[in-house]
């Protein structure tokens, strides 16, 4: 098997490059090394799965790439931005413009309708009201929720909520889609629906996708590359041919 590192070196543009990236937490007397010296590179347009058991540091790694957290040491450069050197405001702008995120628990704001949830990043980006309306409509239609715009999240199924979350993640046309166990709360059928959408965005829009999951089967089915973490360290990094494994996608829980 060819290592991923060799393939990357041949290509030109890098979406993510981390060097000796560390994130340590202090918990009482102990220091928890959630991310402990990870160096990796992700090409633009690549679909990468971050795999590992719980506590392996994959979510912490994702938060660092998302600009939600700051490294203790080392560096992470995304789309030519050295995240460790950005101010809080610049980091917020980075999250707004460069990154789209989806979560296991959808994280829609319950008091807002789907349209309002999807509109929220546009408000932060100070997009004109009229333009916002059409963008929201397009985004929700694309994920098949055009008729559900004025519903609140609680009135929708999990799959529908995650689709709305995807619409929200993509509304600002980010270059990077970060997904944290996106199918974790879904049954296998709706999980497949969501993953198909993610793949579509990856291929059609050329978006770089980093997905955190503990399900190897899911990664094998969709990802072009699988990175395995354990105890905050990178333990394996291999190229995968999507769909090569016959294993079906299994729902979480």
């Amino acid at each position, binding site marked *: 098997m060819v290592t991923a590192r060799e393939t990357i070196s041949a290509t030109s543009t890098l979406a993510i490059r981390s060097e000796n990236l560390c994130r340590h937490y202090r918990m009482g007397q102990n220091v928890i090394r959630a991310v402990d010296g990870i160096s990796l590179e992700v090409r633009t347009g690549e679909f990468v799965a971050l795999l590992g058991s719980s506590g392996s540091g994959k979510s912490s790694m994702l938060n660092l790439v998302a600009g939600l957290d700051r490294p203790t040491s080392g560096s992470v450069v995304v789309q030519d931005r050295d995240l460790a050197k950005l101010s809080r405001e610049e980091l917020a702008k980075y*999250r707004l413009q460069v990154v789209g995120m989806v979560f296991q628990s959808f994280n829609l704001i319950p008091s807002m309708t789907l349209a309002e949830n999807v509109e929220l990043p546009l408000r932060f980006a100070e997009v004109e009201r009229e333009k916002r309306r059409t963008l929201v409509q397009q985004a929700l239609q694309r994920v098949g929720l055009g008729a559900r715009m004025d519903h609140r999240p609680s009135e929708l199924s999990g799959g529908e909520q995650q689709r709305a979350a995807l619409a929200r993640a993509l509304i*600002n046309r980010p270059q990077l889609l970060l997904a944290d166990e996106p199918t974790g709360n879904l049954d296998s059928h709706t999980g497949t629906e969501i993953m198909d959408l993610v793949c579509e965005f990856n291929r059609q829009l050329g978006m770089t996708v980093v997905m955190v999951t503990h399900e190897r089967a899911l990664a094998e089915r969709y990802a072009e590359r699988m990175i395995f973490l354990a105890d905050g360290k990178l333990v394996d990094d291999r190229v995968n041919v999507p769909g090569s494994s016959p294993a079906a996608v299994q729902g979480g829980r």
Partner: protein
Amino acid sequence: MKIPDLTELALRNLRESLLRNSLTTIGISVGVASLVAMLSLGTGLQDLFSRRLAKSGLFDTVFVSSRRELRGMGRQEERNGPTPGESRILDEPARQEIERLPNVAEAYPDIRFITELRYEDQPHMTTISALPLSAKSNDAFEGMQGSFFSSDTAAEVILQKSFAEELLGKTPPLGTPEPNVADLAPALLGKELTMRYAQRGPTPEAPQAANKGTSADGSIAGAAYSVVSREQKLKIVGISDLDPESMRGPMRGRVFFPLRLAESLHVMQPADLREISRAASDQPVYSSISVRVKNPAQVQGVEDAIKKMGFTTFSILDASHSLQQVFRVLYAFLGIFGSLALTVASIGIVNTLVMAILERRREIGIMKAIGASDTDVKKLFFAEAGAMGVLGGIVGVLLGWAIGQIINFGTNIWLRSQSLPSEQFWAVPLWLAVFAVVFAFVVSLVSGLYPAGRAAKLDPVQALRYE
């Protein structure tokens, strides 16, 4: 985020926890209402005093006297002026000149002298003052029985209550309540008094021949005029309710009669003797003149102009300045007490918003994850605090106004039951309403400072982990 978006989001967030936010807003309303109530009481009282004082005719009046009048008021001011020898005489041409000054409504001489009034053959010595017709609106004649002078030359008098009592021989012993003026009126209205006075006339050819009276001094050697004793019948048309000692200037007298009539009588006054060497023989010389200014604000200017003419002036402007000072202090106190409730309400805002942060921790985390900056989050909480402040402020102003109306209404019922005239002592001027709303807004923003800062600093990773 832009302001319309902030307002929209803030209002929808407030609607989400309707009960709690309503209660907080009501708290602000009560605070604002108490502030408005206190300050409008202050404003109303000040208005009431100003109105009463304006009616007293003191604040729009400048008292003018000749610098030669050594007993004049405001002697200190004379030091900078010309020496008495150079100063002008306060005579009719001077009066007319003063009346032509801008902003002067009228200038009339103060004619006041001690005289003997006979009523039912009983002599009574008293001070009689001449009044122009414009004095009718003066509050000395509020609650007066009878009517004001029918004309400026009518042979009519208005009596002060205590003099009316004296005429009826009813002067109450000290310490007993004064009789109501309405009880005195029927016995006196329409009756006649006879005034005996000394008339100052042109120099007669033979001074001794003109001397018919016995009480007058007769002619003085070298004097340029003669003095004749005369009588004048006067009809009682009104009885005033006010204590003469509380008044100043022309209002100080126990009996009043029309000014033109007084002038036509050429009554000899103390100033005549002093001006003997300078006055034209048949021209009256006034000891003082009262100048009514069109607006109390113009008193200073008129006063300065008259001083330039070479006269001594006095006005109650200084007194009104110190009164304003008193009101400023009163205002500050009322404002502080009123603000106390608003302070308590602002703590309510802090509490509500801190609670909201705990409840909406996850929501804040989500907003940050999808691109909200610290500033966005801060602004959103500020907007919520501000919206509560503005809403509370508006409701509070209405509430304060309503409370004022109710108290005003209640007090007036009480005043009427005490047979006192009702008064409007409660006023919510527009500036106060606007100020109250702006103040509530600012106080809310200040209250939002800590919660907003706390919300903005929330770590998104932890906030998202929080269920």
